[in-house]
């Protein structure tokens, strides 16, 4: 279950309203590569994951994504707070205002509402984890696009934090994938559904054996998420706060 802490994971203090920017940023609330999709995907995939490290990873990253959802909602809220309806309309939020006023509603940058079609939960550990790797990259790319659309440091700051988190999540999912593959390779194990196995007996080698971003052949050959990267190899985003926050691992 979840305990709520009454603070953002990363502070958001926006001084200047910008409804047009809010219209685009809301895609990370209710869009295909946004935080709602991410948290729902990971928290839904965790049930059928057979390996403990992967269960924990999905559980905890899914939870963190809910905290990110809150940050994105806050950004949109602060960017539109107090803006008169006529200005909202002029800046492209007329349709949104008509249906939602100042409410925060899960849509993408064009107002298309959120759908579960944005997420995949295959119940297959390899399929699910590689989907998660892709999801983190798409989220990272989206944050980069959003950062490119503004010069406001108050907005760029939390967006940059969120982008960095996606990069770290990608790393962790890569490690979880590697661990799952190692477990599956330990003994003959059919990842496919039983009726497929009955029709055409598979060899003793798991289908997952040769796949992986960590091997030389694979989608992410030049960016191995399974590389041994410890936490906080970058300076903490809070590094200007206190000496305690500067401690790095190794």
């Amino acid at each position, binding site marked *: 279950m979840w305990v709520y802490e009454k603070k953002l994971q990363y502070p958001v203090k926006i001084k200047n309203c910008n409804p047009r920017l809010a219209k685009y940023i809301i895609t990370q609330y209710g869009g295909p590569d946004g935080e709602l999709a991410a948290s729902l995907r990971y928290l839904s995939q965790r049930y059928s994951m057979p390996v403990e490290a992967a269960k924990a990873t999905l559980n905890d990253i899914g939870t963190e994504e809910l905290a990110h959802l809150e940050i994105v909602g806050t950004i949109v809220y602060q960017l539109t707070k107090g803006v008169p309806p006529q200005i909202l309309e002029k800046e492209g939020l007329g349709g949104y205002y008509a249906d939602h006023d100042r409410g925060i509603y899960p849509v993408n940058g064009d107002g298309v509402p959120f759908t579960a079609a944005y997420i995949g939960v295959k119940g297959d550990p390899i399929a699910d984890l590689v989907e998660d790797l892709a999801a983190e990259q798409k989220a990272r790319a989206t944050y980069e696009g959003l950062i490119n659309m503004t010069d406001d440091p108050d907005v760029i700051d939390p967006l940059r934090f969120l982008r960095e988190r996606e990069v770290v999540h990608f790393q962790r999912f890569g490690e*979880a994938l590697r661990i799952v593959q190692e477990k599956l390779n330990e003994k003959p194990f059919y990842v496919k559904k039983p009726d497929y196995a009955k029709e055409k007996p598979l060899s003793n080698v798991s289908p997952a054996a040769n796949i992986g971003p960590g091997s030389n052949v694979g989608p992410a050959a030049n960016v191995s998420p399974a590389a041994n990267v410890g*936490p906080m190899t970058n300076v903490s985003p*809070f590094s200007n706060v206190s000496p305690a926050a500067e401690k790095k691992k190794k």
Partner: protein
Amino acid sequence: MHDAREKLLREIQALEFMEIELNLYLNTHPYDQQALMIFRNTVQQRKMLLDNYERMYGPLTASASNSFPWPWIESPWPWEA
């Protein structure tokens, strides 16, 4: 006193960030003893600062609510600047 509250909250956020980073790292590296040590220290520090903060400025979790009238509903809520 706005600034003192902000500053303390930032420190707590910074420590919690380290905590979650280590949490995620340990999920895939459960035998890393050094990381575990750093995690424990971070939790300890964070709990201390959190105690201070809640004593001075009110609860950050509902279960830490400890005054009258029910303080949990009070602003600021996190999305308010």
